[in-house]
Structures are given as C-alpha cells and as structure tokens.
C-alpha cells in the first residue's frame, strides 16, 4: 500500500492541446508519418545525386571506353595538377565576388531597411517596388544588365565612361557585382526590416530621454537587436553567391577570368561531357559551401554569446 505509485496528472495548458505521455507518442508517430513523403522525395532528389556525384568524382572520364577507379586523382588535378589554373582562378573569383557583393548588399540593404522603417505615406508602394528586383528572373536581369553595360549602353552614357564592361576582367567583375547587388540588396532590406520592426519604439524614446545621440542609439540599440536577422540574411546570401551561375554565364560566359565554381563545373560536366571531373568540381564547391556556412555560423554564435555574456556582471 505504501508503495502505491501515484499517477501524475496530465499537463493541461490553457488554449492548447492536452499532451499526455501517450498523446505525445501518438503525436510523434503522426509527425513521423507526415514527414515521410517530403523526406523520401528529398532523399531521392538530393541525397542520391550528391552521393552519386561524389562516387563519379572518384573515377576517370572515358567517353568511349570504361571508366576506371582513380581515387582522389581528379581532386589533385583540380588543386595542383592540370586543372589547377582554371580551378583556382574560379575559386578566387567566386570568393572575391562573394565578399564584395555581400558587403555592398549589407550596407545598401541595411540603409534601405532603416529608411523603410520610418513611418511614411506610400510605404506599401515602396515595399512593393522593393520586391520588383526579386521577382525579375535572374536570367532576365542578366540580359538587362548586359544591355546596360553595352559599350553604347546606359551606364557608359550616364557616367560618361567608355569601358567595354564585359570585355575585360575587372570591368566584368564590377558589372557582375552591380547586377547582383541590384537584385538582392532589396531582399536583404526586407529581412533586416523585419528585424527592425520588432524593436519597440519605447526603447528609442527612453534612450533619447537619457540623452543618447542618434549614433549611440544605433550602435547600442539597433545593431544588437537586429543581429539575428542580419545573420540569417548574410548566411542565405553567402550560400547563394558562392553558387552563382546565371549572371556570369549570361553576362560574360566566363570570359576574361570571370569563371565561377558553378560555371566551370557546368562546362566540364555538361558541355564537355566529362561527368567525372565535373562532379569533382561540383563536389569541391559543395564542401566549400558547407565549410563556409559552418564558419559563418561559428563566428555568429561566438559574437552572440559574447554580447550576451557582456551584459552579465
């Protein structure tokens, strides 16, 4: 009698479903079943090709005969062998492109978000126009900017320059940067704006009462509070630019050293029908992106922890 166990009552939440332990298990089973279709589809469409690409990269290309297993020889060819010039050129171009576009997109996007955050008439119209660059297909905007950067085009006209923008390396680089930043800075603006809109006005008012200047409010209030929104934006954009294909392919076709990791992988795999070496390049790209995402995540986490820790005395 004394050892009779008392059944614990089910947890009751106001306004929510009652979750008993049996209920929780049933919930998990239902969740599992609901997730299966998506899980299978993603497994088949993503996991299978990625695994097969890695497998392919370990063989050599032999269009007319059989391929042989050559281990990591394709990788040494890319890093230090006959393919290394093209590979490292594409690698450094892609990395530089990523860094530069992200800086510009962040600065311009953040500025746009700050402006859009202030209440004014026609705000809905501005928000709609901000979505226009996002809605235009990249392939179309690539054509548009190719047209703008034509030697007789509007850019040379407006700035009274006469570059052959897509005809040499650095003008091409900046043409691609401008085309990419144009399209995506507004998207970053939207992400940052969402973060800004959560900050209640009272904080700013209180700071003003305490005598803070606009710059101080910005540094001490705005920046820390939008940090997570900015980090998400940065992460997404970085992954996007590292994979960039449409713009360089359409605007310059990789000429004058403007190949990116995706364009060389594409040209090897599909145009030159070297699936093994092409898979090598795309697998390297894939791992590069994972590492980059991981590193950014680490930096972001460390930063967040540091600022959180600083508030505790």
């Amino acid at each position: 009698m004394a050892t009779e166990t008392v059944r614990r009552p089910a947890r009751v939440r106001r306004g929510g479903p009652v979750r008993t332990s049996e209920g929780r298990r049933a919930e998990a089973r239902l969740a599992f079943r609901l997730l299966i279709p998506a899980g299978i589809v993603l497994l088949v469409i993503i996991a299978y090709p990625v695994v097969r690409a890695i497998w392919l990269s370990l063989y050599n290309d032999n269009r007319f005969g059989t391929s042989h297993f050559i281990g990591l020889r394709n990788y040494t060819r890319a890093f230090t062998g006959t393919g290394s010039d093209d590979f490292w050129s594409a690698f450094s171009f892609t990395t530089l492109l990523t860094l530069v576009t992200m800086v510009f997109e962040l600065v311009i996007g953040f500025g746009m978000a700050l402006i859009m955050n202030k209440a004014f008439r026609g705000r809905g119209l501005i928000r709609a126009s901000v979505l226009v660059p996002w809605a235009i297909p990249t392939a179309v905007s690539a054509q548009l900017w190719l047209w703008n950067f034509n030697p007789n085009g509007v850019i040379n006209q407006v700035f009274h320059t006469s570059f052959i923008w897509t005809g040499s390396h650095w003008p091409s680089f900046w043409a691609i940067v401008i085309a990419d930043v144009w399209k995506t800075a507004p998207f970053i603006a939207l992400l940052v704006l969402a973060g800004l809109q959560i900050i209640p006005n009272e904080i700013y008012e209180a700071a003003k009462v305490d005598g803070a200047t606009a710059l101080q409010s910005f540094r001490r209030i705005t920046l820390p509070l939008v940090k997570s929104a900015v980090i998400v934006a940065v992460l997404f954009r970085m992954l996007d630019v590292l994979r960039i294909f449409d713009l360089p392919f359409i605007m310059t076709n990789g000429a004058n050293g403007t190949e990116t990791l995706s364009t060389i992988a594409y040209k090897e795999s599909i145009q030159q029908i070297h699936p093994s070496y092409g898979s090598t390049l795309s697998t390297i790209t894939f791992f590069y992106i994972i590492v980059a995402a991981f590193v950014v995540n680490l930096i972001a986490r460390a930063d967040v922890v540091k600022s959180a820790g600083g508030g505790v005395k």
Partner: protein
Amino acid sequence: MRQRGLLMIGVAFIAVYCLAPFYWMIVSSLKSNPLLDQALYPKHPTLLNFREVFSGENNFQYALRNSVIIAGLTTIVALLIGVFASYALARLQFRGKKLVLGAVLATAMFPLIALLTPLFQLFTDLHLIDTYPPMIVSDISFTLPLAIYVLTTFFSEMPWELEMAAKVDGATPGQAFRKVIIPLAAPGVFTSAIIVFIAAWNEFLIAYTMTSTLKAQPVTVAIAKFTGVSRFEQPFGTIMAAGVLVTIPLVLMVLFFQRRIVAGLTAGGVKG
C-alpha cells in the same frame, strides 16, 4: 522638418534604385532601334520588338507555355508534399524537431550544379532530355524545402484553437476543417504557392541543362537564345520585349500580394 526631407530623399532613392532598371527595360523594348537610340523615353514607341518575339524565328509562345506548365506543376507538387511536412513541423511536438528543421534548411545549401551532373546522366539514359519531367523533378530539389520553410512559418502563426472552438460549438470535424481551417490556411498556402512559382519560373541552370529545343525550354532559356529583327545585330530590343512579357505577370502578382509575400519570406528569419 529637415529630417522629413532627408527621409523623402531616401525613399526616392529606393524607388529609383528598384524601378529604374525595370523602367529602362520597358522603354528599350518600345524603341525600334534601342542600340542607337538612348533617349530616356521612346519618342516613337513601337510594338515591333514584341511582334518579333512571337515571330517564326523566336516563337516565344512555346517558351511561355513551357514555363507555365513547368512552374505550375512544380508548384503543385511542392505544395502538396510540403503541406504535410509543414503541418507536422508547425503543429506537432516531437523529438528531433529542430534537427528536421535544420535538415530542411541545409538542403538549401546544395549547389544545384552538384545535383545536376548525375541527374543529367540519369535523364539522358532515360531519353527524357527536352521533356518536362527532368525539370520538374530537379526543380523540386529547391522548391520543396522552400515550400516547407514558408508554409511552416505561416502554419505556426495560425490560430488553430479556432478549430477546437468550432468543435465545442457543435461542428463535426469535417465541418470544422472546411469552415475554419481551410479559410485560415488559404492565404498562407496561396502566398507560399506564389513564392514557389516565382522561384521555379526564374530557374535557369536546370532548364538550360535539361532542354535543347522549344519543345521544353522555358522563357529563361529561350530569351538567352533569341535572334532579333535584323539578323546582324544583337537582338536587344527583342530580348527586352521578352523580358517585359516575362516580368509583368510576376510584378503584378507581387504588387497585389506584397504584404503576404514579405511576411512569408521574412518571418522565419526573425524567429531565428
């Protein structure tokens, strides 16, 4: 107030930044010789380029048909599969939920090019190149995670208790579902459909790889392969005209649903 003036300048800058290139595209498409004529507006607007877009050389109508079918089917499939997963992620509690969410987000990391070579080989072997299935299947690789991401955001914010309240008021489960859940979920699902449709419509690399003729080429590829009014010059007028045709429906969609689209795209980022 000086601050107000600065704000207005900033707003004007944003508007010009976003819309000027689009305006320029429209203006260029209406000029008979855009290469030589760089005025800010078309002095003698002409529909010459638009006619050329549909001419025998370019036959853009086929590309439009292809894009509609591919993007449409992709959207339907992605949403059908995605709603189930999103319901589970938004409404149910289970161990490893964060892991699943992380995995879905991780699939957004895959460079398309990494998927493309094996898929291209597979579809070549199946003799399916230049048909719709390869593109729809490949597009699912990025539209499904996107659909799940956006749908989960919307489903997390729905007031599900209303369904319980309806049942308490005497509705059958079927009635509660039809009269409460569906109207509540409809805007979120609809917005997700738009976002997914636009993503699929804009896709270039997969389409360029998996197609070779207008039998299956969508607009993004067709535009890249245009010939112009005169065979000897770059067909910028026609390209701009095609670009306008392709973009106007998207821009209209975006204008009408901008508030919802912004909510769907950004809420996830804020929640972190």
